[in-house]
């Protein structure tokens, strides 16, 4: 795998790189693999404890422990537009990542979702560069919880069978980036 530290710290005229250094240079800073999944069906929950969003999970096995993993995810949905809230977290395995600091009783989350009308959906998204420091299979996923009522993914709350209501898709993509 590319290890840019094997390259010369500075280049000068007429420097000839070795084959290994050329390979390192070729491999540096590039996307080594991409894994993605798209959820096209719906998911609804009334759970007040964080629970996995079915179908919003991907597994990637980094080829080097120095690699970065770029996570790009968006989900579409809503929460009842009353005075209630829903929260979404990005996790590596069982560890929440890309969440805010603990601050009193507030919920550390990646993002929060609440639509203004029962027939609306909104998009929540995250872009996060992770450093898992492993070559083992690593799972990235989203989970969610509500404070009360229900949270809806890929549908509006009212979800009437008319053209004015949307059925949407949500996606999570991970990319291994050479260090």
């Amino acid at each position: 795998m590319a290890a840019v530290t094997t390259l010369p710290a500075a280049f000068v005229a007429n420097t000839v790189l070795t084959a290994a250094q050329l390979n390192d240079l070729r491999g540096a800073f590039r996307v080594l693999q991409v894994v993605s999944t798209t959820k096209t069906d719906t998911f609804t929950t009334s759970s007040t404890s964080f629970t996995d969003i079915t179908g919003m999970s991907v597994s990637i096995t980094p080829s080097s422990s120095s690699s970065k993993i770029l996570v790009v995810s968006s989900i579409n949905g809503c929460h009842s537009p009353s005075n209630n809230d829903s929260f979404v977290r990005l996790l590596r395995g069982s560890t929440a990542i890309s969440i805010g600091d603990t601050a009193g009783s507030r919920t550390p989350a990646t993002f929060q979702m609440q639509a203004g009308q029962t027939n609306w959906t909104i998009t929540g998204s995250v872009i996060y560069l992770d450093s898992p420091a492993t070559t083992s299979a690593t799972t990235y996923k989203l989970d969610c919880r509500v404070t009360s009522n229900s949270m809806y993914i890929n549908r509006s709350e009212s979800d009437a069978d008319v053209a004015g209501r949307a059925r949407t898709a949500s996606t999570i993509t991970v990319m291994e980036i050479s260090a």
Partner: protein
Amino acid sequence: MTDYAAVLSRRYAGKEWTLNGDDYTGLTWLSDGTKPTQAALDALWPEVQEEMLAEPAAKAAAKVALLTRLGISADEAALLLG
């Protein structure tokens, strides 16, 4: 087709569950006790659907009543809120 998420949200308040997809088979019950049967949820759907269909009209009627009570038009209300 029964909107199981709507029935569960409106008739099983305080109970916790997840529903993956639109079908009853996607229902996972997280609260204590057994999950409601598909037949029980199907039986509740007509009244829930009627309730949902009536909500926009009820909301519109309440808005008109409030505007009348305040003695202002919808445009004037929008101006105040803007």
